[in-house]
C-alpha cells in the first residue's frame, strides 16, 4: 500500500536533517564507489589476459619438428626429422578423446595476384579444424572442408584484408586468384580479431599444397587444441605424453629438445589460471571488506540516528504512534538514503573508471568496467545490509518508553 503521508513524513525528516542524511549517504556512496572501482580494475586485468590470448586458442598445443641434436640408436646428430600425414593421423586417432581440434599446417609465402593487382602473402595449407584453432570468423562463403582435402581441390579462403587489397570493394567469392601460375577459386573470406597480420593470411587444403608444391605428404607442423574438459594439469601431462610418443615414433632421443618440439599453451594457461585465481580471491576479499565496512558504517550511523531521534520517537509515541509506524519511518529513511547514495557512489565509480580507464592500458588494465549485475547485487546487498543494520536500532527505537525519552534533560 502506498502511503503518501508516510512518505511525506520521511521526506520531511530527510530534508530537515540534511547533515544526518549526508553523513550516512557519504559512507554508503564511498563504499559503493570503492567497490565499483575495484571490480572495474579487476575486470580490466582480466580483459588484458583475454586480449593476450585472443590471437589463438588458449588451449593450443603446437608440435614442430627440426634437426636432431643428439645421437640416438646409431643415428647421427643433425638428421632432419619431418612430420607426415601419417603422424597427423596417428595423433588424431590415438588421442581422439583428449583433442578438441587438430590440423596439420604447411606455410609458404606466395605471390597472390588477381588481374593486375598482386601481393605477397603467407599461405597456409590446413585441415578444416584450423578455422576453430585460429579462431577465424567466416565473413562470407565457407572454410576449407573435408571434400577439398580428399579431392585436392584448388580452392582458397582469404583474409578480409587480402580481399580488400586485391578486390577493392567487389566481392572475391567465386573469383580466381593466381598463386605463382596456378589458379585457385576463392570460396570464403574470413575475419580475425588477432590484428591486421592475421587478416592477411590465406588458407588452402593441405593436400593441395602437398600435391602441387612439395610432392610428398610432409606437414610442417601440427596444431592441436586439447579437450577443454581437461584441467590444465591433465593437459600438461597430455603434452608430455604426446612429446615422448612422437620422439619414440620418430627415433629421436627422449631428451632431444630440437627434433620434436611441443609448445603447450596449458603451461601459460596454468600460470594465468593461478594468477587470476589469486587475483580473484584478492578482489573478493577486498570487495567483501569494502562491503562489510559499508555495512558497519551504516549500522553505526543508524544507531546514532536512533539515539539522536529518541526524544522525537518518544513524542510520536505519546501522540499515538504505533511501534510499527516508528520502525517503518526509520527503516524506510535508511533504505532510501542507502539506495540513493549507493546509486550516486555507483555513478561516481563508473565515471572514474571511464575517465581514467584509457590511461591505465600501460598498467595491464584494459577497459575497466563493472558488470551491471555485480553492481545491482552489491547495491541490493547494501540495501539489505542497511535494512538489517537499521532494523535492530529501529526495533529498539520502537520499544523506547516515552517516559524515558521525554524525561526533562
Amino acid at each position, binding site marked *: 500500500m502506498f502511503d*503518501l*503521508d508516510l512518505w*511525506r*513524513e520521511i521526506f*520531511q*525528516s530527510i530534508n*530537515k*536533517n540534511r547533515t544526518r542524511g549526508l553523513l550516512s549517504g557519504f559512507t554508503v556512496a564511498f563504499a559503493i564507489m570503492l567497490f565499483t572501482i575495484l571490480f572495474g580494475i579487476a575486470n580490466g586485468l582480466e580483459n588484458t589476459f583475454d586480449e593476450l590470448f585472443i590471437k589463438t586458442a588458449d588451449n593450443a598445443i603446437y608440435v614442430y619438428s627440426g634437426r636432431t641434436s643428439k645421437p640416438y640408436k646409431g643415428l647421427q646428430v643433425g638428421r632432419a626429422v619431418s612430420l607426415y600425414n601419417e603422424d597427423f593421423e596417428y595423433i588424431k586417432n590415438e588421442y581422439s578423446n583428449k583433442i578438441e581440434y587438430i590440423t596439420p599446417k604447411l606455410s609458404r609465402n606466395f605471390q597472390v595476384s588477381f588481374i593486375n593487382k598482386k601481393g605477397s602473402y603467407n599461405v597456409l595449407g590446413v585441415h578444416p579444424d584450423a578455422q576453430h584453432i585460429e579462431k577465424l570468423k567466416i565473413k562470407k562463403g565457407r572454410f576449407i572442408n573435408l571434400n577439398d582435402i580428399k579431392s585436392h581441390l584448388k580452392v582458397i579462403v582469404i583474409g578480409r584484408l587480402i580481399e580488400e587489397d586485391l578486390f577493392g570493394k567487389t566481392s572475391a567469392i567465386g573469383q580466381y586468384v593466381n598463386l605463382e601460375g596456378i589458379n585457385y577459386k576463392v570460396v570464403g573470406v574470413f575475419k580475425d580479431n588477432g590484428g591486421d597480420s592475421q587478416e592477411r593470411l590465406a588458407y588452402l587444403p593441405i593436400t593441395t599444397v602437398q600435391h602441387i608444391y612439395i610432392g610428398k605428404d610432409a606437414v610442417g607442423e601440427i596444431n592441436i587444441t586439447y579437450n577443454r574438459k581437461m584441467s590444465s594439469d591433465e593437459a600438461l601431462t597430455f603434452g608430455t605424453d604426446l612429446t615422448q610418443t612422437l620422439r619414440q615414433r620418430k627415433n629421436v632421443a627422449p631428451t632431444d629438445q630440437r627434433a620434436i618440439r611441443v609448445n603447450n599453451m596449458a603451461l601459460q594457461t596454468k600460470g594465468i589460471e593461478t594468477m587470476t585465481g589469486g587475483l580473484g580471491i584478492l578482489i573478493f576479499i577486498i570487495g567483501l571488506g569494502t562491503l562489510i565496512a559499508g555495512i558497519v558504517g551504516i549500522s553505526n550511523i543508524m544507531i546514532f540516528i536512533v539515539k539522536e531521534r529518541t*526524544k*522525537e520517537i*518518544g*513524542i*510520536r*509515541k*505519546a*501522540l*499515538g*504512534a*504505533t*511501534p*510499527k*509506524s516508528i520502525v517503518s519511518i526509520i527503516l524506510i529513511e535508511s533504505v532510501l538514503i542507502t539506495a540513493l547514495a549507493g546509486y550516486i557512489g555507483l555513478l561516481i565509480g563508473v565515471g572514474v573508471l571511464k575517465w581514467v580507464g584509457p590511461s591505465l592500458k600501460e598498467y595491464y588494465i584494459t577497459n575497466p568496467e563493472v558488470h551491471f549485475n555485480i553492481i545491482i547485487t552489491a547495491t541490493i546487498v547494501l540495501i539489505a545490509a542497511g535494512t538489517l543494520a537499521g532494523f535492530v536500532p529501529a526495533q529498539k527505537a*520502537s*520499544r523506547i*518508553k*516515552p*517516559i524515558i525519552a*521525554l524525561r*526533562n*534533560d
Partner: protein
Amino acid sequence: MLEIKQLHKSYPIGDSRLHVLKGINLSVKEGEMVAIMGSSGSGKSTLLNIIGMLDHADSGDYILDGLPIKNLNEKKAAEYRNKFLGFIFQSFNLINYKNALENVALPLYYQGMKRKERQELAMFHLEKVGLADWAHHLPKELSGGQNQRVAIARALAANPKLLLADEPTGALDMTTSYEIMEFIQQLNDEGKTILMVTHEEDIANMCKRIIRLRDGVIMEDTAIKQVRAKQHV
C-alpha cells in the same frame, strides 16, 4: 471518568526494588481539574505516567471512562493514548523540525485523518490558542509561552477525554505561567477534565482539587476554591 484502585508500582534499583506507589486510590469525575502535588520522589510523575499509559502499574485497577486499562500491548496503548489522552509537558516536547501547524496535526496523522482535513482541524486549534499567525513557524522561532500554547493545541487536536499536564508552567516565567493557566482554566470551563502535576502552590490553587502525595501514598485530597488566573494577569 477515571477510577484507580490499589495501584502499586516499583522500580528495580540494583538488587532491590524501589516502591514508588504504594496503593493509590483515586477517583476523578468528568469536568474536574485536579492538581497532583508532592516533593520530588513522592511518586506524582509516576502516577501521571501510568494514567497516561506511558508506564504500566505492577498491580491494581485503572479504569478510564469505563474502559479497563490493563495488559495493553504497545499498539493498543498507542491507540488509546491517541484517542483518549492529550499531553502537555514541561519542556513542550514539540518536534523541532516541524512547524507549529505540523506539530498540532501530528496526533491527527496517527489517527489516520486525511491531510487536508487534519490541516484544517490543526489550524482551528491553533486559532483557538491564538497562534494562527504563527502556524508556519518552527518551535525555535517561538517564545516559551507560544510553544506551550502550540503544545496545548496539539493536546487538544485529537479531542481527548482527559488532558494530562506535567508541570506545564515549569519552564515559564510567572506572567506567562498565568497566561497558560488562564487558558487551561478556560478549557476546564468548557468541560475538559484536566490532571496536572505541579509543585507550585499558586498553580495548584488554580485547580479545583489538590491531591498531595508523599512516599507513594495520598496524604491529602481536598477540594479547594479555584483561584482564577485572570486576576493575576
